[in-house]
């Protein structure tokens, strides 16, 4: 059996696997795209929550003012109605007096829109949205920070053996492909078995040096891809 036989043996795998992987019809949700979708949904949700909070705040302030106004009426209305007390006690309320008494609190809600625009105006809403976005961005940044922390928690070997030479970790981690590296391979595979010269590191490259030579090794953990530069 040679490699072509193994390739041929694969021809007869289950139809469902072939259909599932059909490049023309399989719609997959790649991890990053899915992550982007989640982030987009989270941002939208944060926006909605922000708007709801703003609306709630407005309602609350309106309710408070209304409550305050009502209290004001209760406190001040007697003084305002006082001249009509005699009439009231007579069981007669003059329409004009009643209107006068009820008109005063009615004026306040009319003033509210004039005072409130500060928080209700489009500029204010926009400002709040921007704040929400900023907060979201900060959260994202915190998330990426956390991601980096997770990366740092990856077990990185202190020493590695490559081509018979021992290399020690410098503790440095590169999150971009090291410049000018000359070669790459799999640390765990036999020398020459796997070579991926353009392999990008998804988990960062740990940097290693040796006392025996000036070579620097860059190990992508946990993939095990290795490259070196002189």
């Amino acid at each position, binding site marked *: 059996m040679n*490699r072509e036989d*193994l390739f041929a043996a694969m021809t007869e795998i289950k139809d469902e696997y*072939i259909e599932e992987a059909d490049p023309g019809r399989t719609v997959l949700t*790649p991890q990053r795209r899915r992550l982007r979708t989640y982030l987009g949904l989270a941002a939208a949700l944060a926006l909605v929550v922000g708007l709801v909070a703003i609306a709630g705040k407005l309602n609350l302030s309106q309710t408070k003012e209304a409550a305050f106004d009502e209290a004001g009426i209760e406190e001040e209305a007697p003084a305002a109605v006082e001249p009509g007390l005699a009439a009231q006690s007579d069981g007669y309320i003059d329409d004009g007096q009643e209107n006068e008494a009820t008109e005063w609190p009615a004026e306040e809600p009319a003033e509210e829109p004039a005072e409130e625009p500060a928080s209700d105006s489009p500029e204010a809403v926009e400002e709040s949205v921007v704040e929400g976005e900023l907060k979201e961005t900060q959260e994202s940044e915190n998330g990426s920070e956390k991601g980096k922390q997770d990366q740092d928690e990856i077990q990185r070997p202190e020493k590695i053996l490559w081509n018979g030479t021992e290399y020690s970790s410098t503790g440095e981690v590169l999150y971009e492909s090291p410049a000018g590296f000359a070669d790459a391979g799999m640390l765990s595979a036999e020398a020459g*078995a796997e070579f991926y010269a353009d392999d990008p590191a998804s988990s960062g490259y740990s940097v290693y040096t040796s006392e025996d030579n000036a070579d620097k090794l860059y190990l992508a953990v946990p993939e095990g891809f290795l490259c070196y530069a002189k």
Partner: protein
Amino acid sequence: MLEDAQIVQLYWDRDTSAISETDSKYGRYCSKIAINILQSTGDAEECVNDTYYKVWDTIPPQRPASFPPFLGKIVRNLALDRYRYHHAQKRNGRMDVLLSELENCLPAADIAESALEAGIVTDVINEFLGGLNKQKRVIFVRRYWYSQSIREIAKAFDMSEGQVKSVLFRLRNGLRAALEKEGVHV
């Protein structure tokens, strides 16, 4: 465009329009499989034409439950035969790379021959694929069944090429372990 069952019925009715209907619906699908293996448009075209005649000869008596994999298997086998035929004369870099990747999955020759004949290898591959999550399975099948390039797979999954290589490396090791587990020792 006809439904697959209608196309199959055309074959059963010995209606030659079955071939044009197949070509219309699955010509591109078959060509892609053949091109990925042969790396030659001309060879792939001939291979796809051979596929239609093979299907014509096979249906009836067969009535495939799922038509695309049925076609795909035929075109893949024919493309592989053609690859083997041409391989002595010329090299096919991409296919060579793909096959070299599979070398570290290979079991020992003597045991593997009998296992291959008994269909055990295919059973092990099926079982191995069944144990993977969908994404890994699709990556494996796209690479080693559809012979897609690393770049195509990476693009489809929005992954880096290195990540795809990493996944495939682990999958190949997994397949070798699965073969060993079934008594096919490396």
